[in-house]
């Protein structure tokens, strides 16, 4: 038993409105710099769609994450030895075309153009070369683009569906889309950490946040390849890679990460999970379809006195244990079982979980007229997106995992309808709860957490105990007296 604390997240996709406020909060704060223009540590994708970088989910192309070789786990990119051989040539590395060439416009021409015989306009120019360019890609190129035979049709998840299922998704009767916001998953079994030849990437012991040491990074970019989520980025001016830092400076000040804070759909939840680090490899070696359940299993019950005792022994502070008990993530993932990891088959054990979206009922065409399924609420059976597609995203193909979530979400709606309107058959409501495997109290708690929570209940940042962290290296009083003095300097480059 090796108990550790991990700051983890839940994104409630049913609530996501695809607004990208999160992306810009992050961009403003962290990647609004030369060399970082193309980086979107937080991005939002329309599903079905190809995403950013394009078709990132296709590990046959990008070779990210882990694979099971017999009973051993190895990086899909190759072992350490193999990695070194790729330092100077790595065919799986995404290029600029896979992301996009960042562009801007010659805005100044609007003010400074001399008098002419036509209206001036600000032409698009490359932020890399400064020259006029054709814009053919972007970090959000297929936004809202369901029904696209270029993008949605090439979604790696869609490609795996049957022809019939695929065809359906491009007819108006079945048309559908939803949003998938993505940040670094701060994985338990992070591919980026394992792949770094410089040892520059580490997980912070106190909170599990994965960081790339900007002093140590030497820009080998193995992490870029090894991360199956493509959430490390190479900075082309500094020659170093960067990634989402889960806003540790904000968390250290007791604030929500910027993308969580700014989430106007109120879909983001954050909190501490306790887990047994000794079991990581064993969990990651499960069959695809069992991975979601296995990952749930590694998470420990913060209310269990034995777990608490073990955690204290492992040096986890009391305040963090307290935060773990208030963690909404624990409730969503473990207690209510409605949040699933994204692509668990990549085997990095991502610590960001998703509540899948409920989508409108299907319709069919009847002599030129649209006829909608006559269910009162959207249902499991009549939803517009094949369960198989969602299972491919969130459950290693295990449809039962996704169905179980839906049964719970539907049970919540039925119970609330019953309480607030009273026009549903009581037996049906009870049956839905039973199918969901939730008590009335659990349903009520799930409803409250989904609908009514305030920011401090959604985002439970654990006390970061900075004074103790600093004390390990210097006297906190001395630190206080001297902090902030000095000139700004860029991280050192090694060569």
């Amino acid at each position, binding site marked *: 038993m090796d108990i550790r604390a991990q700051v983890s997240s839940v994104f409630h996709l049913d609530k996501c409105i695809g607004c990208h406020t999160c992306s810009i909060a992050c961009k403003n704060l962290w990647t609004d710099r030369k060399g970082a223009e193309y980086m979107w540590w937080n991005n939002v994708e329309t599903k079905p769609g190809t995403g950013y970088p394009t078709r990132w989910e296709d590990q046959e192309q990008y070779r990210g994450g882990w694979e099971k070789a017999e009973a051993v786990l190895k990086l899909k990119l190759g072992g350490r030895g193999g990695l070194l051989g790729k330092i100077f040539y790595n065919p799986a590395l995404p290029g600029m075309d896979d992301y996009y060439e960042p562009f801007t*416009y010659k805005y100044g021409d609007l003010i400074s*153009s001399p008098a*002419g015989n036509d209206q001036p306009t600000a032409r698009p120019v490359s932020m890399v070369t400064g020259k006029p360019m054709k814009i053919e890609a972007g970090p959000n190129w297929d936004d809202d683009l369901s*029904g*696209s035979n*270029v993008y949605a049709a090439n979604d790696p998840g869609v490609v795996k569906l049957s022809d019939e299922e695929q065809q359906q998704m491009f007819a108006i009767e079945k048309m559908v889309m939803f949003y998938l916001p993505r940040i670094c998953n701060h994985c338990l079994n992070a591919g980026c950490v394992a792949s770094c030849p410089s040892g520059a990437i580490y997980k912070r012991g106190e909170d599990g946040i994965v960081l790339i040491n*900007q002093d140590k990074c030497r820009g080998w970019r193995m992490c870029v390849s090894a991360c199956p989520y493509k959430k490390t980025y190479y900075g082309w001016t500094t020659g170093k890679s960067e990634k989402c830092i889960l806003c540790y400076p904000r968390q250290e000040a007791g604030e929500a990460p910027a993308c969580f804070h700014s989430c*106007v759909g109120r879909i983001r939840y954050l909190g501490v999970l306790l887990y047994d680090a000794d079991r990581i490899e064993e969990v990651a070696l499960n069959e695809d379809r069992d991975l979601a359940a296995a990952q749930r299993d590694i998470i420990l019950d913060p209310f269990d006195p034995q777990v608490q005792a073990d955690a204290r022994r492992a040096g986890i502070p009391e305040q963090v244990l307290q935060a773990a008990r208030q963690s909404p993530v624990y409730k969503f993932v473990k207690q209510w079982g409605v949040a699933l990891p994204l692509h668990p088959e990549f085997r990095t054990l991502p610590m960001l979980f998703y509540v899948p979206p409920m989508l409108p009922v299907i319709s069919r065409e009847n002599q030129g007229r649209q006829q*909608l399924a006559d269910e009162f609420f959207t249902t499991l059976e009549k939803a517009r997106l094949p369960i198989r597609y969602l299972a491919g995203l969130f459950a290693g193909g295990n449809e039962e995992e996704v169905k179980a979530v839906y049964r719970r979400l539907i049970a919540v709606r039925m119970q609330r309808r019953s309480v607030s309107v009273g026009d549903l058959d009581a037996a049906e409501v009870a049956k839905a709860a039973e199918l969901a495997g939730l008590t009335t109290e659990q349903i009520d708690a799930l409803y409250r957490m989904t609908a009514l929570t305030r920011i401090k209940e959604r985002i439970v940042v654990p006390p970061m105990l900075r004074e103790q962290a600093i004390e390990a290296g210097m006297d906190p009083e001395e630190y206080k007296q001297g902090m902030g003095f000095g000139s700004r300097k860029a991280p050192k480059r090694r060569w």
Partner: protein
Amino acid sequence: MSWIKDIVDPKSRAWEEFYRNRNQCDKVVRSTHGVNCTGGCSWNVHVKDGIVGWELQATDYPELEEGLPPYEPRGCQRGISFSWYLYSPLRIKYPYLRGVLTDLWRAARAKHDDPVAAWASIVENEASRKSYQQARGKGGFRRSSWDEVEEIIAASTVYTIKKYGADRLVGFSPIPAMSMLSFAGGARFMQLLGGVNLSFYDWYCDLPNASPEIWGEQTDVSESADWYNSKYIAIMGSNVNMTRTPDAHFLGEARHNGSKVTVLSPDFSMTSKHADWWIPSHAGQDGAFWMAVNHVILSEFHHKAQTPYFMDYLKRYSDTPFLVKLEERDGVYHAGRMLAADALKGYRDEEHAAFKYLVWDEKAAAPRMPLGTLGFRWQEKKGEWNLQMKDGRDGSDIAPALSLLAAKDDELQVAFDDFGAASSVRRGVPVRYIETTGGRVAVTTVYDLLMAQFGVNRGLAGDYPTDYDAENSPYTPAWQEKFTGIDRANVVQFAREWASTAEKTEGKCSIIIGAGVNHWYHANLLYRAGIVSLMLCGCVGKNGGGLNHYVGQEKLAPVAPWATIMGALDWSKPPRFQNAPSYHYVHSDQWRYERAADEARIQPVAEHNAITAGHTMDHQVRAVRNGWLPFYPQFDRNPSEAVKQAEAAGAASNQEIVDWTVKQLAEKKMKFAVEDPDAPENWPRLWIIWRGNALMSSAKGHEYFLKHYLGTHTNTVAPETAEGSVKEVKWHPQAPEGKLDLVVDINFRMDTSALYSDIVLPTATWYEKDDLNSTDMHSFIHPLQAAVPPCWESKSDWDIFKGLAKKVSELAETHLPEPVRDIVAVPLQHDTPAEMAQPEIRDWSKGECEPIPGKTMPALVVVERDYRNLYNRFISLGPGARGGIGAHGLSWSIEDYYDEMAQGPDTVEWGGKKYPSLVDARDAAEIILKLAPETNGEMACRAFAAEEKKVGLPLVDLAEPTRGVRTTFADLDRQPRRLLTSPIWSGLSNDGRAYAAYCLNVERLVPWRTLTGRQHFYLDHPGYIAAGENLPTYKPKADPSSLQDLVVTPGDSRSIMLNYLTPHGKWGIHSTYGDNHRMLTLSRGCHPFWINDQDAAEIGVVDNDWVEVCNDHGVVVTRAVVSARLPRGICILYHSPERTVGVPKSPSRGNRRAGGHNSLTRIRLKPNLMLGGYGQFTYGWNYWGPTGANRDTFIRVRRLDGEPQW
């Protein structure tokens, strides 16, 4: 796992300060964005090293009542990108002046010491005037100084006032609520001059005319938190998730609370994702869907089961029990006017008996006269204007009959128009015969007419459908299929779920509706069809119920004191406020491109008669002459010149000046300017634009603006077709180009309007000035604050206008040293007794009645302007405020407050008197907060006391608990403050209750401001009867063949014709944000053209191809997005791109720069929305009038040949 590091080596983690440093900042300042998004979000602006670094949402909103989700965080992707603008290359840092004009001006000033003479020398020389007009929009800006540009603007102002009249000066700034003081500064300046301020809510097509039609209210809706209370939500024409970003969570959360969500939308929209039912009804056909829903509701929940809650609600709160006369014409009966008390012997002597309407009393078996109708509102005796079902004569209780079915004398066949089939049906209606002073008349109830109109078969004879499957019988579920494409079974199920939810919850069904519906030509009918379903099920005035129309940030909460300051009413009234749709339709000459015959096809009517016939321009002229709509310039001469002429003719008093003017008009010696708008003396001359993009994003018919207003290049090729079909207006064979002498734009970014203006003034951004902001989406009021001082040479709008006022006052020393008398023409006004002016339509200019100002024609008022003291007046709250402030026909005294302020520390002194100071916007903000019932509990009590007197029922108790509240600007900085319950608004928000419109009316029996004081199903205006819109109805979508969009634009196999839709989009708020780097990066680097995949395949267009989108009005060149998310036959270009960023040239229009979305639109005014002078159909600025509808537009799109040219 060796790679998990514990904190053992702090040195190896010392680098972590790299990111910590970035996050640290020096201060955080609360502000918001003044951008007409309705968000009204509280933001924390982070300042580091004196530079704005970034913004994040405030999350400290006070909580509402238990059980409602909190508001935090509010703020979207656009708002959070705002800081980009401050230091961007798009920022306007200095005053700019077009080079051609700079040279002309400097040369003229070298010759003329007097700036006014210098200006005259430029504009009176046709060649020099043309030279700078033709340079508009074509580069060549030069940096100028504040002193120079202020002098030019002031010189042009004074020149125009003297030469043409102050009503040739025009100002446009939209949506005051988004930054109230910035709006007010400019409006105050214009009104002190005697200039014109244009409306915006109707022009933007945000005004839902059905709201004044039904409720006598511009708009009142619930705050977004109240969606959560709704148990059945129907969304149409509103893409909540895309355009109500900060509020969308309430919708998602309501779902989890057991609410059903249905979305009517032709495309799979962002909001459809949140739907249980996405109903893909055909674009613009929502009305047909709701007409059929109403058929089912009436059939099952009113006729078969007489749902007690619904029946009771209708009797109390709607016009359904009121009696309507049936009029026989050619052997057929038609629904006519309401029966009023003046027709009955027993009631005819009542004051205003002609405006006290009657119901049928079941018990007395006689017509009775309930309280609360229009006559009670304006009668001498106060306290009888309420919704008690009591007889106004003796106070006895009335038991109104909804239907006369059980008490009928007879059954008559009444004709009902079926516009969908261009025919009419005859349906039996139960009637009573009543002896009136004019003989025996047949009457029925509004309810019975509704039953017949909707085709509910109650066993009466006539063309009633036998069942829901009667496809050719309006308005059955089967009937609507051909319009909507939605199966009849779904309509029936929807109606049942809707009505039964409303029955169980007592009205918790709501419609969220927006521009997607409101921008159609027949939007008033589409809205009414939906509202009918709400009223039939008792859903209006209920938390969780009602029509939630969100288009434009129309709710300026502290409106009473603000309006006084904004309109300079503290110094003189009336103001010159004009409805912009009419203004631009006339002055930008768009009327010249219409044919009466086509307009008649777009607007089918019940009767072709003098009311409905003729060109829209003729309707417009009549509306002005009859006092229905304002119009400026007023007359064919300078209004102060007119006063002088009257004086020369012997008029001494103001009354005599008015009398002289009336006589001149009656004898046609003086003409209204609208009768000859192309004559040079009637052109607008100086236009100041601020806080808006008047030449692009709101300029429906943008290319006509360029041509006729600016006189620069245009891409329109449309033929002029009005000659011969206009009768009331003078036709000039050659349309004028370049009417405007000077166009001034106040801006922080170089948008299209700035690019095309003569002078661009740099304004402070929303993070650089103090101001106030409110919205209808939530119930808080927010400050804008200067996180950093105005950057470079920018100034706040308030200070810019203050500077202009000073310069005008300086020039007035020489040019206008004495006070000037000015005669102001204003239309008949809503919320005044003028609502009783014209129950019949009579045209004095045709000799049908006497010309009587304020009764049969516009009111005429002589006012005095003091140009020398313009600046002093600008910075002082004038004595006119002391007598009282108010709104919506309600006012109360503030004398003690005024006197106290005039003695206090913040005063200005001139002419030997002290006044409360308006020197800074912050001063004005403090005064507004001090005087508004929404922010001062004492004022709320006073306002309710005044309302109590009128209504005669207790109301002050609503404000008593918060009497001690006094909100200051500093309070708003500390934490968002919730608005107090106020009689200026109709919701009740005490104790954290969510604001929902009309709860005050329903719970406290305060009448709606309508004819009957109730909600109107029936509109008995003679113009509505003639148009066939007296009952809720369906009119078909305009056919492209009558729209004159594609008369000369060639069609070929490489192009396809599509219905052109411009809904609000994801990456901008109107044109703001859509040109910034953040939004463009996330949206393909352009504002793309969305097209269905099969339509695209037909013309060989693949995703991201460049396309050329044309019609006669203009051209757009952009890239295509191809998606089956859109159905065939429509296309979307989201509102509103600039033509300034990444727009290539158009090969098919002479290789000139292509335009923006409004290059393809043109205004079409709906004539019956011009009616006035009767009940709720009486003019109010931004309340009533035709709207700038733009959905009924068609284009042809083709692949752009070759590479785009720049």
